[in-house]
C-alpha cells in the first residue's frame, strides 16, 4: 500500500489536534472539517486545509458521512482519521471510505461489525472463549420486554448503548422503579451520540475495577498488546482519571489479560489500535466488557510508559507496514491522565460552556497537555465538555501523583468553570493514593471530593477580595468625575465655548 500523503481528520477539538500533530511530524498534510459552531475552533487553524460540513448539531455535520467523504475528496486526502466518538466506530462509514477509494485509518468494517455493536461483540467473545459479564445478547422489542429482563437478572443492572462508548447512553439502574426513565434517557442519549438507540442490559458487578488492555495489530496478522490502563475513576460511566500500570495488577495478571485481549482481537481479525475493556471483580476475576475499535482518550498514558506514538503506529498500520515490535514492552515508570472538563462539580457537574477569557497551561518536566482550546475561545454548547487531557510521567506512582498535583496547581482557566479542583481532590484522596479504588469510588466519595474549606485560605481570599473591591472602586471613581462633570457642568469651559461658537 502506498504512503499516506494527506489525512482528513473527521473530528474536532483536542483529538483532531492530537492527530494533526503527529501528521505534521510525519510530514503528512492535514485537512480539517468544521461545523458552523466550530469556525473559530483551533483544529481548523491547526490543519493545512479546512472544509465546512454543516450546522452545529453533530448529526447534521460531523456525523453526515457523505459530507465527510466529499470534504476528503475536495481536499485530495488519501486517508481519513476518525479520532474517537463521531464516526470512529461506524462500520458503514468504513465501507463508504472504501467505496470512495480513501484509506480509513482504523480497523476493517468486518471487525467493527463484530465488535462495534456491543451485543454482537458479547456473543462473539462467548464463542471465542473470552469471559463476559452476564447480560442480554439480543435487542429488546419494547420497554416492557427490557424491564422484564432487568427484573429477571435483578437490580442493580447497567443499561448500555450498543452503538458506542464513552459513557454516553449508559445508566446504572439501582431499583426497578427507576428503570423506565433510565431506559428512555439512555436510548435518547445513545441516539444523539451514535445515531443508534439500541440499548442492552448487563448485570451490575459490585465494586468492579475497570481495567483495559491496549491492543495493536498490523495487516499481516501480527497482534500484540501494549499493557493495561486502570480507568476505575469514573463518574456517570465517564472516565475522569486513568493510569498505567494499574496499581492492582500483578505481572501474571497483566500477562493473562493481555493474552485474552489479543485472543479477542484476533477472533475478529482486528487491524490497528483497539482497546479491550474488562471488569475486574473483588476476587480479581476479569470479564470482557466491550472492545473499543478506535483510539482511546486515555492513550497518552500508554504512550508515556512505552515511548510509542500510537497515532503514528495507526498510520503505519494503515499503510500496510509491519508492527515495529513483537511483544508488549515492559512498562517504564508510571503515567497518570486527568481529563479537564468544562463543568461545575459543585452543581452536579453541570456543563459550563462559554468563553475562555484566560488560560495558563502547566509546563515543566514530564507534563503533557493535549488541549483543543485557547484564550479567547468560546467553548460551544454542542459537543463534549472535555477541553483538555493532562498527563504526566514519573518513575513511580507516588511521584506521578505528586507531579499531577503540581501540574494541576498550575492550570488556570478563567471564564468557564472546570473540574480542576475536583481532579486535585481525587488525586489527594487516600483511596486513590492507596491504589485500590473501584468504579464506585467517585460516586461514593462525592461529598469528600467537593472538598472542605481551609479557614486560613478563606481569610487570605477575603483580604484579596477587599483589595480588589478597593481597586475596582478607585477605577470607577476615576471615570466618574468626567461623567459627573458633564452632568453637573463642572467639567470646565468647553461646553461654554462650544455654545458660544455656535451662535
Amino acid at each position, binding site marked *: 500500500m502506498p504512503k499516506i500523503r494527506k489525512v482528513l481528520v473527521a473530528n474536532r477539538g483536542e483529538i483532531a489536534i492530537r492527530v494533526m500533530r503527529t501528521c505534521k511530524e510525519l510530514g503528512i498534510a492535514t485537512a480539517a472539517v468544521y461545523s458552523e459552531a466550530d469556525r473559530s475552533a483551533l483544529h481548523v487553524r491547526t490543519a493545512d486545509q479546512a472544509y465546512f460540513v454543516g450546522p452545529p448539531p453533530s448529526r447534521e455535520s460531523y456525523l453526515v458521512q457523505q459530507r465527510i467523504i466529499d470534504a476528503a475528496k475536495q481536499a485530495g486526502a488519501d486517508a481519513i482519521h476518525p479520532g474517537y466518538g463521531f464516526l470512529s466506530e461506524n462500520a458503514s462509514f468504513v465501507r463508504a471510505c472504501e467505496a470512495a477509494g480513501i484509506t480509513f485509518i482504523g480497523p476493517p468494517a468486518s471487525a467493527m461489525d463484530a465488535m462495534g455493536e456491543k451485543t454482537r461483540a458479547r456473543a462473539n467473545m462467548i464463542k471465542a472463549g473470552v469471559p463476559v459479564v452476564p447480560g442480554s445478547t439480543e435487542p429488546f422489542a419494547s420497554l416492557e420486554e427490557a424491564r422484564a429482563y432487568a427484573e429477571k437478572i435483578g437490580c442493580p443492572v447497567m443499561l448500555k448503548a450498543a452503538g458506542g462508548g464513552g459513557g454516553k447512553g449508559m445508566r446504572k439502574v439501582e431499583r426497578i422503579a427507576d428503570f423506565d426513565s433510565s431506559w428512555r434517557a439512555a436510548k435518547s442519549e445513545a441516539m444523539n451520540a451514535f445515531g443508534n438507540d439500541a440499548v442492552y442490559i448487563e448485570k451490575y458487578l459490585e465494586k468492579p475495577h475497570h481495567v483495559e488492555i491496549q491492543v495493536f495489530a498490523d495487516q499481516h496478522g501480527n497482534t500484540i498488546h501494549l499493557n493495561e490502563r486502570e480507568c476505575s475513576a469514573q463518574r456517570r460511566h465517564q472516565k475522569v482519571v486513568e493510569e498505567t500500570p494499574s496499581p492492582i495488577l500483578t505481572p501474571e495478571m497483566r500477562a493473562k489479560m493481555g493474552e485474552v485481549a489479543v485472543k479477542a482481537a484476533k477472533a475478529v481479525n482486528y487491524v490497528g489500535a483497539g482497546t479491550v475493556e474488562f471488569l475486574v471483580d473483588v476476587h480479581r476475576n476479569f470479564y470482557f466488557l466491550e472492545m473499543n475499535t478506535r483510539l482511546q482518550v486515555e492513550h497518552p498514558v500508554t504512550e508515556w510508559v512505552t515511548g510509542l506514538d500510537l497515532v503514528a503506529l495507526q498510520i503505519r498500520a494503515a499503510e500496510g507496514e509491519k508492527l515495529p515490535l513483537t511483544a508488549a514492552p515492559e512498562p517504564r515508570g508510571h503515567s497518570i491522565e486527568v481529563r479537564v472538563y468544562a463543568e461545575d462539580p459543585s452543581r452536579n457537574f453541570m*456543563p459550563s460552556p462559554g468563553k475562555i477569557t484566560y488560560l495558563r497551561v502547566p509546563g515543566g518536566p514530564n507534563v503533557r497537555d493535549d488541549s483543543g482550546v485557547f484564550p479567547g475561545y468560546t467553548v460551544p454548547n454542542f459537543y463534549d465538555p472535555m477541553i483538555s487531557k493532562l498527563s504526566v510521567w514519573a518513575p513511580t506512582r507516588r511521584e506521578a501523583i505528586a507531579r499531577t498535583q503540581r501540574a494541576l496547581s498550575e492550570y488556570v482557566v478563567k471564564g468557564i468553570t472546570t473540574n480542576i479542583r475536583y481532579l486535585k481532590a481525587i488525586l489527594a484522596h487516600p483511596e486513590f493514593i492507596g491504589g485500590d479504588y473501584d468504579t464506585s469510588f467517585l460516586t461514593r466519595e462525592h461529598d469528600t471530593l467537593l472538598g472542605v474549606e481551609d479557614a486560613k485560605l478563606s481569610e487570605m481570599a477575603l483580604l*484579596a477580595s477587599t483589595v480588589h473591591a478597593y481597586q475596582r472602586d478607585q477605577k470607577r471613581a476615576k471615570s466618574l468625575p468626567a461623567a459627573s462633570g458633564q452632568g453637573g457642568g463642572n467639567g470646565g469651559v468647553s461646553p461654554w465655548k462650544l455654545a458660544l461658537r455656535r451662535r
Partner: protein
Amino acid sequence: MRYFTKQQGQKEAVPVDLEPLGNDQYKVTVNGKTYQVDALMLEHGTMTMLVDGQSYGVEFEENGDEVGVLLRGQVTRFDVADERRLRLRAATAGFSVEGKQLVTAPMPGKVVKVLVKVGDEVKEGQGLVVVEAMKMENELKSPKAGKVTELFAKEGTAVENNAKLVVVE
C-alpha cells in the same frame, strides 16, 4: 475605608477596614486582626499578594456584584461593598422570594423534554425539565414540594444561561 465583605454561603458580611499606604501596600483590619498586605494587580484579573512573607497568586473572576477568588487551589466567592453602596442596595433590593421558587437554566442548552404542566402538584426532587448541553442530558428537579404555577420552558427550544424555566409555588 470600611468595606463589608460577605463570603458566599455565609450569613453575615464582615466589616473590613482597608487603608491604602501607596506603592501597592495596604493595611487591612478584619476581625480585630491587622495585616500588612503587599498586593499588585496584574493584567487579566491576576493579583500577586504578599502577607507576612507568604506569597499568594490570586485569580479573580468578576460575576456581577460577586467576585470569585482562586487562591492556592481554593475558590471562594465574595460580595464586597462600601457603606454607600450598601445603602444603595438596601434601597433597591428587598422583595422576598420565600415560598416561590424559580427554576432557571443552569447553563446554555436546549430544552429536550418538559415533564410537567401548569397546575401540576410536584414533590421535592421530582423532575421538571430536561436540558441538554454538551451532549449530556440534565434533569432539573423541583427544589420543593408545591404546585407548578408558571412554565416558560418549551420543548425543542434553545435557552440561555439563567433563562427562567419553571415556577413552583
